[in-house]
């Protein structure tokens, strides 16, 4: 199944959840945020939210700032 992850094309298994996608990239979830098709996915839904073909996934991270 084809998705876009932070502007990069990516093939993933069907029925992959947001949590599984993060695990595949060794991302723990602390300080992370996820938007799919420009809608923010709340953290408590990550494990149940199944990615759909052609989803545009954006991952964000807390960084230093003033």
């Amino acid at each position, binding site marked *: 199944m084809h998705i876009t992850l932070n502007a990069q094309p990516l093939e993933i298994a069907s029925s992959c959840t947001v949590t599984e996608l993060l695990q595949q990239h060794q991302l723990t979830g602390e300080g992370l945020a996820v938007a799919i098709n420009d809608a*923010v996915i709340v953290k408590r839904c990550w494990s149940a939210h199944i990615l759909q073909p052609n989803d545009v996934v954006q991952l964000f*991270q807390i960084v230093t700032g003033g």
Partner: protein
Amino acid sequence: MFQIADRTFSSRLLLGSGKFASPLLMQQAVRASGCQLVTLAIKRLELTKPQDDLVTPLRNMHIQLLPNTSGAKNAKEAIFAAELAREALQTNWLKLEIHPDPRYLMPDPIETLAAAEQLVKLGFVVLPYCSADPVLCKRLEQVGCVAVMPLGAAIGSNQGLQTRSMLQIIIEQAQMPVIIDAGLGAPSHAAAAMELGAAAVLVNTAIASSNDPVAMAGAFANAVNAGRMAYLAGLATPQQQATASSPFTDFLATL
């Protein structure tokens, strides 16, 4: 002690976490400053080089984390950034900042007010970075912001209280904490802000870009305390003419 929303702070110095040479140095400066609130930013993750976990060490120090919306050019982008930040840090506290102009980073008052109003309705605890405009600050208070963060000078400019007389009006009129943010380049600037009656100051560049950020953090902490004590004690009024502090006597007249 002062209060923002439902949280009480004993330190009136707030720190920004940007521009430090390393996350460890930032944490050391935070500890040296005694601050209890630190700002953070959010940006798109670089998959090839995700950054270290900044959050856990600050949480372990019981620091209130305040994510900002830096990078947002309008209210719509700021609200998107706010929703991301809320998930990333699991906090509804937010430093709202919208500054589309990269040269002076001046906050856009119209977009900031519009975003503040919507974010309050969405349940965010909103602290807006804003111009030192007394009317705008009142409007931000009226839409439900828990504090205002007017600028002393342009972000990172180290110019001190260029907006001094406007800040005095803002502080006089405010029914909520006024936190002077941006432009404070020296501990004396922070002390001056506190002498005006500011509830707190937020400092980043002046500490992070110092040769010794840990020592500078301590210097700012002392200055903030000194300024607050002076405000509470009541400053003497400036006068044009001299007034003698010692008694005039004529015991030298016989010489």
